[in-house]
């Protein structure tokens, strides 16, 4: 499960003040908004974009892990990874369905992903050259996503919140699955330990970037908080993630690749070094190591599957005609 601080939401809206005030009153009263309720256009557009990005992230997120299914070291690992990747496909479907309640079709969203118009989480534009990377994805990437998604279970939009509840329930095994892989390597031969540390060195900073830009640079964050789409800011969630994850690394003798990382007694949390935002924006804008491959793989899957979709519809049509003729 993978979501990210929303990239480039446009919360602008043109309704009159009385309408906005009525809507805000419902939000402030913690009422859930359902698909056919009146809502500001900006609220609808923000959700379509956010849920769409989230759904695309689930689907694209199947690719780096799928890379290792046939090469998993044991049957136990293979069965678990297969189940996890299958879950991610399901999560994509729940999210596409939630977005569809806002009047956008899955076909439209798919086209936007394939054309590069729609974004997905920057983390999936990094490669998975070693088996340890599969452990890191479960531990760090799913871990970061869980931080983000638990508050989304209380999102003001009913269908999104219900999808998130399902996702979080199913998600609980993913992070444990990943941590167990990393732990096994960390307690293995010196070569396996090196593999785990080398992988952590590559994944730590991109995982912190998953929470999106700093609060000061996150232009539409305030509106999303006001509409209770978001419950915590990017920096708050990132801090929670660091505080939860650093002790988990220490427990298995791995070290975060950050010389500035240290416990701050006063704030009861860790201080950490500066994030390379140039890298983040480069990856978001298509310049990451795997952006081209990911979209090419999605495009190939969509094109190769075209005849299946067409045949299924033709078959359904033929059966319908036969039924009508028999009546």
């Amino acid at each position, binding site marked *: 499960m993978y979501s990210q601080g929303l990239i480039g939401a446009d919360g602008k809206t043109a309704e009159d003040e009385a309408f906005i005030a009525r809507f805000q009153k419902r939000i402030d009263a913690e009422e859930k908004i*359902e698909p*056919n*309720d009146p809502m500001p256009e900006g609220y609808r557009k923000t959700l379509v974009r956010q849920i769409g990005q989230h759904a695309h992230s689930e689907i694209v997120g199947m690719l780096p892990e799928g890379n290792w299914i046939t090469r998993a070291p044991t049957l136990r690992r293979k069965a678990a990874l297969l*189940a996890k990747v*299958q*879950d991610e496909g*399901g999560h994509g*479907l*729940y999210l596409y*369905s939630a977005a*569809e309640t806002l009047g956008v*079709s*899955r*076909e439209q969203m798919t086209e936007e992903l394939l054309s590069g118009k729609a974004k997905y989480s920057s983390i999936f534009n990094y490669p998975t050259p070693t088996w340890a990377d599969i452990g890191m994805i479960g531990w760090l990437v799913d871990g970061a996503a869980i931080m983000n998604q638990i508050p989304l279970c209380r999102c003001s939009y009913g269908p999104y919140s219900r*999808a998130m509840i*399902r996702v979080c329930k*199913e998600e609980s095994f993913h992070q444990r699955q990943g941590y167990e892989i990393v732990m096994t390597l960390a307690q293995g031969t010196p070569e396996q330990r090196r593999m785990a540390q080398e992988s952590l060195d590559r994944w730590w900073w991109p995982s912190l970037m998953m929470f999106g830009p700093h609060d000061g640079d996150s232009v539409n964050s305030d509106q999303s908080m006001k509409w209770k789409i978001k419950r915590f800011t990017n920096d708050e969630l990132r801090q929670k993630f660091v505080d939860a994850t650093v002790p988990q690394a220490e427990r298995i003798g791995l070290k975060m690749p950050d010389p500035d990382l240290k416990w701050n007694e006063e704030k009861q949390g860790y201080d950490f070094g500066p994030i390379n935002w140039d890298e983040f924006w480069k990856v978001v804008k298509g310049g990451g190591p795997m952006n081209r491959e990911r979209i090419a793989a999605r495009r190939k899957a969509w094109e190769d599957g*075209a005849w299946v*979709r*067409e045949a*299924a*519809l033709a*078959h*359904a049509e033929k*059966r*319908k005609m036969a039924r009508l003729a028999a009546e």
Partner: protein
Amino acid sequence: MNKETPVWEVFIRPRTGLAHKHAGSVHAADEVMALQAARDVYTRRGEGQSVWVVRSADIVAFDPADKDELLEPSADKIYRHPSFYNIPDDVGHM
């Protein structure tokens, strides 16, 4: 592709004795594939003993704009509740 695959709503009975409850949606060309997709997506962890699928387009509902008059809670009809009626205590539980 110009034709969109229809959306189906999925209802699942968690176990006998309970009613089917809305679980989510799937896309499928026909009812056979809709059922298969619903099983694959919504029953991977023992969630159900029975699955229904219904075309979303076939669901009939009130216009939400008329919700207030059509679905008003009848708060003034207190005689619809048992506590409206005065029965002496010595009659016992009723």
